[in-house]
């Protein structure tokens, strides 16, 4: 409490009192505070005039002298009152213009031209890294090395669906569905064991000769594996059937197997249970230019064909 001396002489009280002697001072507001308050009132009025502010029935005041003019990607120029969505479009336009020289170059160039031009490929790389991290890394992993059995490795030289620029672009644009059927019930346990011996022998593993011979018969006739994997077992890129003759495995975890028996059971598991997996389509979510840049990036990752 201030001294009662002061209350009597300089400051007024509100005239209320409680419990007999409790009084309330009525100190004037400091000037700096008062003027700041007036300034905020003036600011609000200016803001109401410039920006969308007051509701009127089913509409609202749009603000004056504060228009935004932006150009859309397909070249339409639009002028509108201030709003955050138009602001975004303006922002996108400015970014497009800043990158325009590069984007135009990328769009107009063939993949070979991008590869052979240092500046273009540097631009494509830096943009692709971000796109890959945001969209692809959750499956193919940050470095593109994939997860055996789930998401293919994009760094190696083996391509289920083809490693040319055109094929990779098709893969990313429309997505892919890999379907290795299950042979549970269609082949006996022994047949599956034999065919696994045969499949492993194709990539240079030492296997039991008699079993391999029986397995080849299963592969070509009873199992009908050749219909998809081809007579040479090298796979067919139009259906993404894996090449079984190289040492690269995408589903069966043969490289991770410690013993010969583990290798065989890894292959048997694929043949027994089959595998269905989906690469999503990116058309619509990513622009054509973004897909082109990613295609270039993925192709270079895997030293594509």
């Amino acid at each position: 409490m201030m001294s009662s001396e002061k209350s009597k002489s300089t400051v007024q009280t509100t005239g209320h009192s409680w419990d007999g002697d409790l009084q309330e001072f009525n100190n004037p507001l400091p000037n700096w505070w008062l003027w700041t308050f007036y300034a905020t009132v003036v600011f609000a009025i200016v803001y109401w005039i410039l920006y969308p502010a007051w509701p009127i029935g089913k509409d609202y005041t749009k603000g004056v002298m504060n228009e935004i003019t932006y150009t859309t990607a397909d070249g339409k120029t639009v002028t509108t009152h201030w709003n955050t969505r138009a602001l975004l479009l303006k922002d996108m336009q400015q970014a497009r213009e800043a990158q325009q020289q590069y984007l135009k170059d990328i769009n107009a160039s063939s993949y070979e031209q991008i590869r052979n031009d240092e500046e273009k490929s540097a631009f494509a790389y830096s943009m692709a890294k971000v796109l890959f991290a945001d969209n692809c890394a959750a499956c193919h992993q940050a470095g593109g090395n994939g997860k055996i059995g789930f998401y293919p490795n994009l760094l190696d030289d083996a391509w289920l669906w083809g490693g040319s620029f055109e094929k990779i672009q098709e893969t990313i644009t429309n997505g892919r569905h890999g379907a290795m059927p299950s042979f549970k019930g269609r082949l006996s346990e022994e047949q599956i064991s034999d065919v696994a011996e045969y499949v492993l022998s194709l990539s240079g593993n030492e296997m039991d000769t008699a079993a391999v011979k029986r397995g080849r018969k299963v592969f070509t006739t009873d199992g009908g594996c050749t219909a998809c994997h081809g007579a040479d077992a090298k796979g067919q890129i139009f259906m993404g059937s894996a090449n079984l003759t190289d040492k690269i495995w995408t589903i069966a975890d043969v490289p991770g197997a410690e013993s010969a028996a583990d290798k065989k059971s890894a292959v048997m598991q694929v043949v027994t249970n089959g595998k269905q997996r989906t690469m999503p389509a990116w058309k619509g979510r990513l622009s054509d230019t973004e897909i082109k840049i990613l295609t270039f990036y993925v192709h270079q990752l895997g030293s594509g064909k």
Partner: protein
Amino acid sequence: MKHESIETNAGLLIVLTLIVISIGGLVEIVPLYFIDSTIEEVKVEGKDTIRPYTPLELRGRDIYQREGCYLCHSQMIRPFRDEKLRYGHYSLAAESKFDHPFQWGSKRTGPDLARVGKKYSNEWHVQHLTAPRSVVKESIMPNYPWLSRNSLQYKDIQDRMRALKMVGVPYSETKAEYEANVKRFGEDVAKNLDIINAEKNLLAQAESGNYDGKPEKLSEMDAVVAYLQVLGTMVDFSKFDEGHFAKFR
């Protein structure tokens, strides 16, 4: 009323204080209910493309809320360039008009999910929800292994839909309501909004979608993945001019 009688009466003071401080909020919020462009009209070939959730998606949404996914994930892409580049088109008000309560959120420990639908495969979602670190090494998202183990409870699905109908979601019970939905959303969608056939529709979608990869079991995972896969996919933005939705602001 005298100043003194307010100041010496705590109850009255509280009531009057509440009225005064709510004026600011009311002035900002109430007009939005009347302004035509608050909720965008999104029609393609005369039909609304934003529809209420199917029974299975609705169960998935309930589980999403039960598990508290919203504590780490927002569902609101703001109109900024960085968000557009990462997540896609900004969210429309219309896209959450059937959400009660909406899942906009404000906390992003994980990424925004407003447009996660169709971004990943069903298999990925199952694997990720069961053990996030098996696909994203550095993830701090918790494991939700019980989603695959728990059978989906759906006996009360009709009540859940009726509750939402009470707050304005156009699920249909009568023939007239069904006809109105056919006109508004088209026949394929309207069928799934019918409360009477909800159980049948839920089972049919789970069977044809096979979201968790295990056709023999209807699990909570089926519902959650069905819900995640529809998020942000109802509007085909290629059907609209780039500046179209800016006109509503």
